[in-house]
């Protein structure tokens, strides 16, 4: 690997790091795990980078590698300490606005999303990132119809979690 490629990659990742951070936020529950996963995704992105030929946008390509790392390659650590604290930091749920309906609703929603399975989280993530069903389907390797079906099931599941 030459210096130019390294520089190019690190710059691209630095500019697009939000995508990786968001994946980490969704799939981990504490700061250490967040960092672990971020590092693993970075390693996998770097390993795959020589094959990235710019057919798609760097960010589009990142979604795939980042999600694949989170749902297939990464072994969740057993650490689940300070879940609540961590989430309130990452999601910036403000204590003073806690009684506002919208704020409370969001808190519940984020809590519900965190309870979903790995695949379900991946779908929700891509949905929240404003990806269309074609992209969601391609990323996960399922048909578009099934991506829609799955999304509807997830919506139902979230509804059940929110209104037990």
């Amino acid at each position, binding site marked *: 690997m030459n210096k130019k490629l390294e520089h190019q990659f690190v710059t691209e990742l*630095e500019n697009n*790091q939000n995508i990786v951070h*968001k994946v980490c936020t969704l799939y981990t529950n504490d700061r250490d795990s967040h960092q672990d996963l971020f590092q693993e995704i970075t390693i996998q992105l770097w390993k795959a980078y020589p094959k*990235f030929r710019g057919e798609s946008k760097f960010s589009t390509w990142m979604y795939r590698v980042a999600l694949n790392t989170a749902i297939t390659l990464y*072994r969740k650590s057993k650490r689940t300490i300070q879940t609540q604290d961590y989430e309130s930091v*990452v999601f910036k749920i403000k204590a003073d606005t806690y009684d506002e309906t919208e704020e409370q609703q*969001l808190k519940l929603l984020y809590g519900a999303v965190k309870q979903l399975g790995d695949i379900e989280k*991946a779908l929700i993530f891509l949905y929240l990132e404003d990806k269309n069903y074609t992209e969601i389907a391609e990323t996960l*390797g*399922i048909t578009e119809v099934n991506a829609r079906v799955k999304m509807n099931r997830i919506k139902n599941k979230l509804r059940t979690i929110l209104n037990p």
Partner: protein
Amino acid sequence: MMDELELLKKDWQKKEEHLPKLSYEDIYKMIWKKSSSIVKWMFYISIIEFVFWATINLVFTDAESWELFRTLHVYEITLTVTLINYAVLLYFIFKFYSNYRKISFTDSSKKLMKTILSVKRTVTQYVWFNIAIFTVSLVTGLYGSVRYGPDSKKILDAAEHAGNQTIFWILTIGATLVMVMILLLLVWLFYKLLYGILLKRLKKNYEELRQLEI
């Protein structure tokens, strides 16, 4: 629900400003760290398996053993088994390597998981093959030593004396079978545990995607 998800989406896209920010140097350092992914683990475990079974083969087939096989009249069959063994070993190493190379993180999630599972299947097949070979060697070795070994006459005479040879052979075969079964059970448990821990999550996620397509 639709409205709530829209609310979530709007909020999610605003979150960016609160996310951690890593510097160029932080990221640069990260690209040189070692991966701790399950694929890496699987690779190491597989290498250990290949080495382990190859060593067992070498240990059991040194020059002295060959002499022994000759006196026990199992030379030909052992030679055949050993040759088959090495041919199959080469085949498995090739298959393992080519499957391993196919693992690509830029594939779709489903395809990636499928490739990883197929690498695992290759290794498992290799292990079962070795157990089969091991069993065949054990049985021929045992047969040879009872039939032609230095004490075989004594053993067979004692068997004749105690009752008849048929019962003796049935008991010998029975004992061998039990030994093999225990061995198989141990190996099976070991693999269930090893790959169970390593691939449980991946298998679950793969099934979830696969079920959707049925």
